């Protein structure tokens, strides 16, 4: 074992030599270079990994078909570990190497660090609802924004004649954004908001729930998207609370269903884009594309796709549309193209010169877990 220390520099050098050829592209001008910044380890590893699965699947499929517009895709995935300094290093390298598109499959702080780097292109695709890119930038959000999601909840409440909501939000960035959206949207809609924050280390959420889920509260919303979200659901069940609980879009996954199947509150609801329940999607094209993706993903990875995967799919569809434009490297032209052309996907993305958010509140539905599948939520009495 002691040899290790001595052998270390030699091993590093050997590794460098071995890896070097892999990094030199065979045919430099014949490929589309695409970058992906995603946290594959660290606290946000779940999100990064799930988005990365879809990106990889897209590249495999496209390249198997001979590429897009005659060129194969060369994907560089860079693990930012959810650290902005890593994200910046990743994105700078990608831009320097001539990436035409960057998937910003990362979380808030990393995305805020990448945004200024694409001032003059390339296109940055953002699946996270928490970072809304300005319409004068090259950033495009392929999901509804957090405000849109909150508006959908407000719609649902109004449809059910509910004027009060209890909300639990984490102390992380998603919680911070969630709280800001809730204050704005519920305030505008005259819905009374009762709010409690929960620390990321917390192993029990019963005080937070006791504070926000009084008997006069008909619906409770947990905007927690990280791993700790499960703590809220389990505490909810343990308190024997009877209200429906709405969880965040980040929890609409098989892994989550597996975790809660024994400890499900009486009614578990969630936010999500409609594509997660294709049967209820009105647009036949969107419905077919959602259906096709859900099946293809399940076949490829032997697991059901979730909301995060679906947002990843939206991102790759927009990317594919960009690559099919006459000159994807002409970023102003691509920007104009995206701002004027609806992009068919699991949900048709409609960007405009005024908004770079591709979806809005109308694409968001409130789903409900029945058995082990998510369906459209029933009304709340």
């Amino acid at each position, binding site marked *: 074992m002691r040899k290790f220390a001595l052998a270390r520099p030699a091993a590093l050098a050997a590794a460098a030599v071995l890896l070097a050829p892999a990094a030199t592209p065979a045919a430099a001008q014949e490929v589309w270079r695409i970058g992906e910044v995603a946290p594959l380890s660290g606290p946000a590893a779940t999100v990064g990994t799930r988005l990365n699965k879809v990106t990889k699947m897209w590249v495999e499929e496209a390249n198997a078909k001979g590429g897009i517009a005659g060129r194969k895709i060369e994907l560089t995935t860079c693990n930012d570990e959810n650290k902005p300094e890593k994200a910046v290093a990743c994105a700078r390298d990608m831009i320097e190497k001539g990436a035409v598109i960057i998937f910003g499959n990362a979380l808030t702080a990393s995305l805020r660090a990448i945004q200024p780097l694409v001032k003059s292109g390339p296109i940055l695709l953002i699946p996270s609802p928490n970072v809304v890119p300005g319409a004068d930038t090259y950033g495009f959000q392929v999901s509804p924004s957090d405000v849109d999601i909150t508006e959908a909840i407000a719609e649902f409440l109004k449809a059910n004649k509910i004027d009060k909501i209890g909300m639990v939000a984490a*102390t992380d960035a998603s919680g911070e954004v969630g709280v800001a959206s809730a204050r704005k949207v519920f305030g505008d809609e005259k819905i009374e908001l009762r709010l409690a*924050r929960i*620390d990321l280390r917390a192993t029990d959420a019963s005080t*937070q729930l006791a504070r926000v889920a009084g008997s006069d509260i008909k619906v409770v919303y947990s905007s927690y998207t990280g791993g700790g979200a499960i703590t809220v659901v389990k505490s909810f069940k343990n*308190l*024997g609370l009877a209200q429906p609980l709405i969880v965040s879009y980040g929890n609409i996954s098989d892994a989550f269903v597996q975790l809660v199947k024994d*400890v499900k509150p009486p009614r578990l609801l969630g936010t999500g884009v409609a594509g997660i329940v294709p049967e209820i999607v009105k647009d036949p094209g969107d419905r077919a594309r959602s259906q096709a993706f859900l099946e293809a993903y399940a076949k490829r990875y032997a697991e059901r796709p979730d909301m995060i995967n679906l947002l990843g799919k939206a991102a790759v569809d927009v990317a594919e549309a960009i690559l099919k434009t006459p000159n994807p490297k002409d970023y102003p032209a691509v920007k104009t193209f995206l701002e004027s052309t609806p992009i068919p996907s699991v949900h048709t993305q409609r960007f405009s010169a005024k908004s770079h958010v591709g979806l809005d509140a109308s694409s968001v539905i409130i789903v409900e877990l029945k058995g082990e599948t998510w369906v459209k939520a029933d009304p709340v009495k």
Partner: protein
Amino acid sequence: MNLFTQSVISGLMTGAVYTFLGIGLVLVYRTARILNLAHGETFAITGVAAALLAGAGLPLGAALGLAILISLAFATGLHRFVLRPRAEWPAGTLILITLGAAFVVRGVLILLAGTDPLSFPVMFEGPPVRFAGGAMPLQGIALVVLGFGVSAGVGIFLAATRAGKQLLAAAENPYAAELLGVNVERARITAYAIGGLLGALAGVLLIPLIAVDFQSGLAMTLRGFIAAAISGMSPVGVLFSGLGLGLFEAMVGAYLGALYQDPVMFCVLILVALWQSRNIRFGGSRRA
């Protein structure tokens, strides 16, 4: 629902977790003079192993038993094969070795379990117990009773029994302890085993109420460490510091907002460190 009652219940449950993990750290620190930063890994290993084994179809009892054994093997193996041969190394280096072990476990767990959180069913099923406007799940009662009970048992054993005092003496002065006929090595491996067992038990009881993932270990070590540090590494004190922390966290969460929890809590920690060290000088090194 009564917010105060619920805060007390939540505080008890959270406090039990603090104590459960804290006492293992204190035990190892007091017998082997090592701050074991891999302590929380026993929690993560137990949780991931139990979830994977139960997921693979093993009956829950068998999965939990096996998981606890794996965690015990890790805790004692870390001592026997890694730390013991280096007993004479400086304390700081030994702390870093345990940190390295924690990093290795994290690297193995992400390969075994992926990045998604895992869990397994509770041992004590049934509707929550309700009293005075609060509700407490049966598993939570078990967590509180066992958490404080076992920790109190260990604390009293160390502080009040002859064998326990010998264990502590082994750390204060190993050579003198040997002279007095204390088997220092046995004392230490016992400490690691008990520590590992406590971490594993905490996992078995708590994880069904939350979830576990590859990086839960260090977070749990930190929890135990906070409780242990505030108690001044005292086996009895950690019961009270754990309880106090749990209640504090719950009360802050209920009445003040979780955002202010850390700044307040850790200012207290710094003050306690100052208070604890008021009479120690020169790095706690031996006197002339």
